[in-house]
């Protein structure tokens, strides 16, 4: 992966520990919304490189909205986004696309083969005509190896299963070899083992390659395997910090406005549904 220098100053709000690792993405007093609604206000965040940060929160709390704004796909109502120290709108389109890779929640039905989809990840490098150089081919190969999607390279996307397709789409994102990855619900519609695969790839990118990985994750247990959490509630940002800090502060219960029960089993945090406690089941089940 790209070992780009990360020399920009960390945000003033960052703790010394964060400053040492440097924020790849930073926001200042961001206000975001869609339609007539402003969903998020005064969002000031510093998202560090080399860590996997998960965004969690109830439906409609603005997870996608925040990600889209960070990716430069939607203009914020107020405030600014800094990508590696430079305001997002000051990057040229191509430059920015090389620094910041984005995975949408839903991808269209395409007639392309898996390799062609991954090749599109090199658009910002190889341009309109797609004249691929050796380095582009190498990047594509690395991305497909990392996601285990190389065996399907020649197959049409439509012939792949949901899990296979998601790996190819993830390979497309990794092929950019960008220092910042933004992923909107990369694990939805996948069965639990496939969700785990995707999460493992994301963590490897962060820990192994020093990439700044930020993803919205719906599944709470899966989100708790991330390094850091950004917790959004119905009324805005609840907290941003390590998973431990989020659990100590009970941010999740605040965000979901209901008791969110997290248990720790062998160092792994799990969300326990409290259905039984709320409405006891009959002793004998049919």
């Amino acid at each position, binding site marked *: 992966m790209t070992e780009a220098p990360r020399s920009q100053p960390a945000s003033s709000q960052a703790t010394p520990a964060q400053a040492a690792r440097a924020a790849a993405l930073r926001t200042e007093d961001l206000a975001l919304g869609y339609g007539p609604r402003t969903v998020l206000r005064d969002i000031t965040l510093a998202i560090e490189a080399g860590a996997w940060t998960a965004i969690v929160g109830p439906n409609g709390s603005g997870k996608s909205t925040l990600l889209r704004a960070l*990716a430069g796909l939607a203009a914020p109502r107020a405030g600014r986004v800094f990508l590696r120290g430079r305001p997002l709108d000051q990057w040229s389109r191509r430059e920015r696309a090389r620094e910041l890779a984005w995975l949408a929640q839903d991808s269209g039905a*395409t*007639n392309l083969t898996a390799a062609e989809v991954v090749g599109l990840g090199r*658009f*910002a490098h190889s341009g309109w005509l797609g004249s691929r150089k050796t380095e582009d081919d190498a990047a594509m190969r690395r991305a497909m190896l990392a996601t285990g999607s190389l065996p399907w390279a020649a197959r*049409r996307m439509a012939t792949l299963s949901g899990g296979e397709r998601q790996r190819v789409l993830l390979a497309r994102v990794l092929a950019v070899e960008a220092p910042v990855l933004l992923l909107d619900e990369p694990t939805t519609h996948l069965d639990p083992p496939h969700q785990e695969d995707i999460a493992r790839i994301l963590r490897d990118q962060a820990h192994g390659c020093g990439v700044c990985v930020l993803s919205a994750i719906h599944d709470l247990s899966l989100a708790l395997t991330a390094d850091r959490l950004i917790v959004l509630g119905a009324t805005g940002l609840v907290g941003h910090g390590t998973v431990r800090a989020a659990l100590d502060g009970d941010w999740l219960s605040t965000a979901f406005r209901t008791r969110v029960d997290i248990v720790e089993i062998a160092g792994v945090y799990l969300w326990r549904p409290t259905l039984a406690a709320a409405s006891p089941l009959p002793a004998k089940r049919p």
Partner: protein
Amino acid sequence: MNWLAACVATTVILTAASLVIGTSSIETSLGWLFTPDAQSAVILWQIRLPRTVGAWAAGALLGLAGAIAQGLFRNPLAEPYLLGTASGAALGVTLSLLGADASIGALAWTTKVGVTGAACVGACAAIALTILLSRGVLQTASLLLSGIVVAFLLSAVTSLLLLTRPDLWRSMQSFLLGSTGFLSWSGAALLGIALVLCIVPAILVSRGLDALSLGEDTAQSLGLSLRMLRLTLLGVLSLATAAAVGQVGIVGFIGLVAPHLVRETLTVNHRQLLIGAPLCGGALLQAADLVSRWIIHPAELPVGAVTAVVGGVYLVLLLWRRSRHD
């Protein structure tokens, strides 16, 4: 690529066949080929050849426009006329017929050139109106809706005009049904130039269409300008459709079916599709043209009627095959 070679071979065969199929019997036409005289030379090289070459180019333009429309709107049912072009062209023709009223009988040739130009202008004006109504090119859904509104609006105006002048209805008929009968060398040359002008920029931005097939956000995140891509493609779509409509009238289904045929039979990205769909569309319209000349020989059917029947049957078959798979 064998498939594309087949398209080219079909075109060559159809071109040869079109030289010997016409109002005169095939034997007579063959005789002309081998023992030409002044009159038969005119029929073969000034009437039949430009007609079939022009039909190929018009079909190719429609195939290209269809492929672009389906990629741009990310909808396999999109077709070249969906931005109101057909209604705009029809209105243009009506207006030119009304305007050139005095010279209708006397100077049929001038009127014809005038009609072609008017159809082109009408088609372009309709697209401009559509883009204006949807306030730009960034909202696909509102572009499509505006296209429908413009189509209805302009058709209504055309109908009102024709109500006041029912005698123009017959002249409009051949245009509305589509006809390759008026194609001359100059028309074929215009279509050829339009084809080159359309296919070069289309292929240059074909990778953008690939990106677009993954979704608009994704395409944008890859570092391409959605606005530039859309404007380029809409420009090409307008030019291709307007040129074809101007020369051969409203020929349906070629633009819808040609890209489908290519996609159904080949694994393609958009660069290949933007080459394959014109080759396929050209061969299709040539074939339809031949059928229209031959089926009720010595009279002719409007070529648009032939493409409508064949294209409709193909789509129904496609539908049946899909539902059997599901």
